[in-house]
């Protein structure tokens, strides 16, 4: 009886010991990534960056891929954003977003230019020669796939609605590449594409620059941009900026069992400090072309 009581006491004592407390959950933040070419491609490129940032900032970063046309509807549910510069300008004006860093890629660092391209053998030499031609634009909220080229045409005295034979937007994903191939294979007389995409396609061997001609270039403007929404913790915003600026080509993160170079996977060269005024060129262009956030209805 004595033994049973002692054993029972031991069992009860052991059962009463609390299990080790689970580690405290990390704060959760949401980072919206504007879809560049497709949802899968965007998450594949920037998912590791989100994981890396989470580790450095001590938070759980949820990467959310959002279409350009839907992005502003979701901005209030996000802490950080990664978008093109026009979307940044829209969100800065209408949604209280503040810039964190510019993304470096290609020959012009954080900037690129909108280009109008044609087949190399066409006789045209400038944008004004496109009167009566067909033209394909990229995404409508792209600063260098639509807005910049609209600016070029207007400066050349062309109204796309009356002076082109027609203009169109390729459907679905990978619009920039569809525009390039569409021009290359004669579906469109001319195409609107970011210079950065031409650089990338040339570098990867998907494009022989001798097959195309750049008819006109828009002003260099910042391109991909990281920003913070008005709900983001200011201390975390500062940490994010420091982390991005310090991110180098050798930095890696473990994702799905493999070690990934963050910048290489994202297909970017790094991040650079920027000021809101660096986007005044984008704003001026948006005003000239009646684009959001300065669109007059």
């Amino acid at each position, binding site marked *: *009886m*004595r033994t049973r*009581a*002692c054993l*029972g*006491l031991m069992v*009860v*004592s052991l059962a*009463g010991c609390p299990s080790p*407390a*689970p*580690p*405290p*959950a990390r*704060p*959760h*933040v*949401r980072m919206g990534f504007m879809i560049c070419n497709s949802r899968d491609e965007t998450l594949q490129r920037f998912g590791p960056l989100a994981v890396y940032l989470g580790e450095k900032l001590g938070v759980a970063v949820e990467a959310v891929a959002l279409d350009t046309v839907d992005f*502003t*509807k979701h901005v*209030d*549910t996000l802490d950080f954003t990664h978008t093109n510069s026009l979307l940044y300008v829209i969100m*800065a*004006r*209408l*949604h*209280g*977003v*503040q810039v964190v860093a510019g993304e470096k890629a290609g020959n012009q660092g954080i900037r690129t230019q909108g280009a109008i391209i044609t087949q190399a053998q066409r006789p045209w030499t400038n944008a004004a020669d496109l009167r009566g031609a067909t033209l394909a634009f990229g995404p409508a909220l792209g600063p260098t796939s639509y807005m910049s080229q609209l600016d070029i045409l207007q400066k050349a005295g062309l109204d796309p609605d009356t002076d082109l034979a027609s203009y169109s937007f390729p459907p679905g994903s990978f619009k920039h590449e569809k525009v390039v191939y569409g021009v290359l294979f004669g579906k469109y007389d001319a195409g609107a594409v970011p210079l950065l995409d031409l650089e990338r396609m040339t570098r990867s061997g998907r494009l022989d620059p001798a097959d195309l001609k750049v008819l006109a270039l828009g002003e260099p403007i910042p391109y991909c941009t990281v920003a913070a*929404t*008005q*709900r983001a913790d200011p201390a975390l915003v500062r940490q994010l900026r420091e982390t991005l600026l310090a991110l180098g080509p050798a930095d890696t993160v473990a994702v799905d069992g493999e070690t990934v170079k963050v910048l290489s996977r994202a297909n970017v060269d790094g991040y650079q400090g920027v000021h809101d005024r660096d986007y005044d060129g984008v704003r001026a262009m948006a005003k000239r072309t009646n684009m*959001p*956030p*300065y*669109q*007059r*209805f």
Partner: protein
Amino acid sequence: MDRLDAWGVGVVAVLLGSAAALNATQPPDAHSTTPRGVAVLTPAAGQGPAALTRARHLMEADSVTEAERLVDGHLQAHPDDAAAHVLRAELWMRRQDPLAAVLEYRRAVLLEPDYLDRRTPLYQGGRMKTAMQEGTDEVARRQAAGTQPEQLKVYRQAIHSLHKRLEGSCG
């Protein structure tokens, strides 16, 4: 059962009773993940009056005139709906009228001070600052163009009032 057995049974009973009492008074798991508050911005999350939800949807789709009609109708019936004033301010910004937006933001803040509190999901300081900055520029432009200062006083007062409440704290 001897004395030691009795002591053992008694200790077991005390332990069981203590465990039961502790469980009954234990607060919720302190380590559970509490989802971050989603910024409830007017009826963006589908909450609030149907008219405002619809108006926001129209605004996002660039149907600004239709959105304005809905919001103005709602405000006639509910002049003290702070969320409606915020939405009206956003519509004014899309109309490139930051001064009208500032007046709406001020009205909204008087009705719901949490729009200025960064610690709440209602915080709208970022949007307001943009409207205030553009409003300040517009006041300067109008004054330079010859508008009498008295006619601009209401806008200056609204901008200064918001500025004071947004930035006036010590911390």
